[in-house]
Structures are given as structure tokens and as C-alpha cells.
């Protein structure tokens, strides 16, 4: 039986619930940016964008708000929150690499039992590889959470014993949020501790969809 799966919004909301008040957070391109829409009321989060913004806010809604220079890492137009500021790329990555961000939320192709992350290159050699700021975020943020579907489109597990795709960083992932549950990587034990199994997902179903040892 196919286990029930959470929607991307459910997954994003589950991760958002774990972001502490006052945190400085970088949300990766793709799935992770959705997290911003699900942060609980009354919790203040300051979003960092690698191109040189602290205090990224919502998309512009009027012509007056629209500034073609003011874009986020995904190159989409955004606005600045009161208390936000600008800086250049060298300083932006000093912030990232220097451990000043409380949390980076990244997408992933694979996460290994020792917290290795593969999220930048596929096996298609004709397609140009692109890394952007992923490797800097992987090594730099105080915590790296991965938000991803539990399995690839073809059903193969993305939580794996060892990554066989090119690595973004080694031993950097702490937690993984998927459409089946929440997992904490234990690199010493080479396993993932199951923090939460979503409603209707049996441990057996989870194990069948996972390529590394699970501990509950």
C-alpha cells in the first residue's frame, strides 16, 4: 500500500513550526522558499538572500513597490522589510560561511547517513552544472535543514546510506523534513532518528521508502 503523503505546503508548514522566533534564515531556491508562507503568527523571522539582502519580504504588489534591482536568490522581485539592509556578495557569503545564519533550509537530491548532502549536480553531463551558493550554505549555517520529497520521482529513496550523486557538502545536514515525516541524522550511528511519522505512515512503509537505517 502506498503510504499517504503530505503536500508541499504541509511539509513546509511542519518545518516552519520548528523555526524559532528571531531566527536569521536562508531559504533555498525551490521548495524551501514556500516555508516563509507558513511561519506561525507572531513569530519574527529575518530572511537572508545570498545576493546581499537581510530582511527579504514579500513580492511587490504595486508599481511603486517594484524595484527591478531588488530580487531574491531565485531572481524574483521582492521588497525589503523595515529593519532590512543591503550589502555586497563578499559580505553576504561572509555571513553565510561565518556561521551567522541560524538556519539554512535546502532542497536535496540525496542525504546520506552521515549528513552528506547532494543537491547541485545530476548525472547529465551535457547539461551545464550550476552550484550557486549551495556549498557555502551547506558548510556555513548553524543548522542545515533539508526539505524534500521522501523519494525521487521514480520511487528510489533520497535518504541513502551513501550519496552517489556529486556532494554539496559533507556531514552538514542535521534534519530532514519530507512528505512522510521528520528525521534527525545521527552521523555517529549512521542512521536517521525518526522525530515524527506523519499520520497514516507506518514504520514499515517508511523503511521501504528509505535507503538508510531508521531508528524510532
Amino acid at each position, binding site marked *: 500500500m502506498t503510504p499517504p503523503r503530505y503536500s508541499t505546503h504541509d511539509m513546509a508548514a511542519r518545518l516552519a513550526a520548528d523555526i524559532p522566533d528571531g531566527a536569521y534564515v536562508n531559504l533555498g531556491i525551490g521548495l524551501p522558499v514556500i516555508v516563509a508562507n507558513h511561519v506561525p503568527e507572531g513569530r519574527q523571522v529575518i530572511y537572508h*538572500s545570498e*545576493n546581499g539582502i537581510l530582511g527579504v519580504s514579500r513580492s511587490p504588489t504595486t508599481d511603486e513597490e517594484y524595484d527591478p534591482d531588488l530580487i531574491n536568490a531565485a531572481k524574483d522581485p521582492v521588497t525589503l522589510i523595515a529593519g532590512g539592509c543591503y550589502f555586497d556578495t*563578499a559580505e553576504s*557569503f561572509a555571513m553565510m560561511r561565518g556561521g551567522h545564519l541560524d538556519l539554512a533550509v535546502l532542497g536535496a537530491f540525496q542525504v546520506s547517513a552521515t549528513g*552528506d548532502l547532494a543537491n547541485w549536480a545530476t548525472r547529465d553531463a551535457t547539461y*551545464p552544472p550550476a*552550484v550557486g*551558493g549551495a556549498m557555502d550554505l551547506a*558548510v556555513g549555517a548553524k543548522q542545515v535543514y533539508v526539505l524534500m520529497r521522501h523519494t525521487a520521482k521514480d520511487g528510489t529513496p533520497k535518504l541513502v546510506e551513501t550519496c552517489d550523486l556529486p*556532494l554539496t557538502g559533507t556531514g552538514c545536514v542535521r534534519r530532514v523534513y519530507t512528505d512522510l515525516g521528520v528525521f534527525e541524522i545521527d552521523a555517529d550511528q549512521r542512521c536517521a532518528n525518526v522525530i515524527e511519522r506523519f499520520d497514516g505512515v507506518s514504520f514499515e512503509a517508511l523503511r521501504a521508502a528509505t535507503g538508510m537505517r531508521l531508528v524510532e
Partner: protein
Amino acid sequence: MIDKFVTDMASAVADMPDGAHVMIGGFGSSGIPFALIDAVCAAGPRHLTVISNNTGSGETGVSALLREGLVDKVICSYPRSRGSVWFERLYTQRAIELELVPQGTLAERMRAAGAGLGGFFTPTGYGTALAKGKETRMIDGRGHVLEAPLAADYALLSAARADPWGNLVYNTAARNFNPVMATAARCTVVEVAQAAALGALDPEAVATPGIFVDRVAVREAL
């Protein structure tokens, strides 16, 4: 009297030789020196090495240089933006060389060149394919990669306003790579939307001091 304004975009880049290494500021379409790039396309130096975060989109910016066949090699972090068709075409034809560098390492290598440093150890990329062939070292129990400074012959930049000494202020997120590239090139050329009188820029908000700037050209009003 010091006056770094030049008459137009063409004269700002007229002396760029074949084989030049050229940094181009910007991220996505923000802070890109479109007018200077057009002037380079018109002048037509060949066998350029372009150092930029992206590879342009559509027919403008870095894409235009690629389309004109002026570029042998690109050093960048993210050559795969929406509409980077010209780069993808050349890359799949194996008609262009790509040196892929993590974005923070790209910026930091430029800063090292601009700041007179001989190189630095960074944890970024350790244990990955992008560290292949590079010297590594464990520092405080953590793997690091030794990265070399990255300089260029020219930097083509975009800013909001400049004064005659080349002091620059930017608009919002258009800074990105522009200030760090300004420090790392032998000849730093800037296009600005507007000229400012000496003393008109807030000395607390100058993001690129004029000492890093050689030439400034003002964009024509649209």
C-alpha cells in the same frame, strides 16, 4: 583635476584587447552593466574570459557576448538561469570552457586579489568535486580547501550614481558582485544611471570608494 568620467560607453572599453579577462558585475538581471556589454559587443575583442556569477539571459548581458562568439571561457557559479540559452547551446556543443566556482568562493577569491592576499582556506567545497586537485588541510578538525586569488584585466560594473572621483553608490540589491569586482581588476569601468557632483554623495553610504574605479560612463536616459 581628477575626473574619471569618459564621454561614452564605447570609449570606456575601446582598449580592451583580445584575450582579456573581464569581470562583469550583477546577479540575475540586477546590477548588470548592459550598456558597457553592448559597447564590448560593438568593439568585438575575441577570446575573452568572462568572470561573472551568471551567464546572462535571453539576448542581453553576458548572453550577448556569448552569442557574438567573443568568449572562450566562463568562470561563474550559476550558468543555468532562466533563459541562459546561449550558454547552454555553446556548452552542449563543447564550444566554451566552464570553470564552476561556489558563489562565496568566487566572491572571496576576488576579494583576496583586491586585498593583496595570496590565498585562503575555506571549508566550502571540501570533499566535493569542486575541490578536486586543490590543496586541502584540516584546520580545527574541519576540512578546508586552499583557494587562490582571482584578478582580472577589466571589471565592467553598474552602479546608481558616481562622482568625478569614481565614488559609487548602488540601488538596493544591485550591489551584489559590483563592489568586490571593483577591487580586483586592473581597470575598473563603471556605467551609472546618474552623475553626481563631488561632495554630493553621502560619505557614509559610498559602497565603492573611488580609489577602486578608473572610468565612469553615464547611461543615456531611455
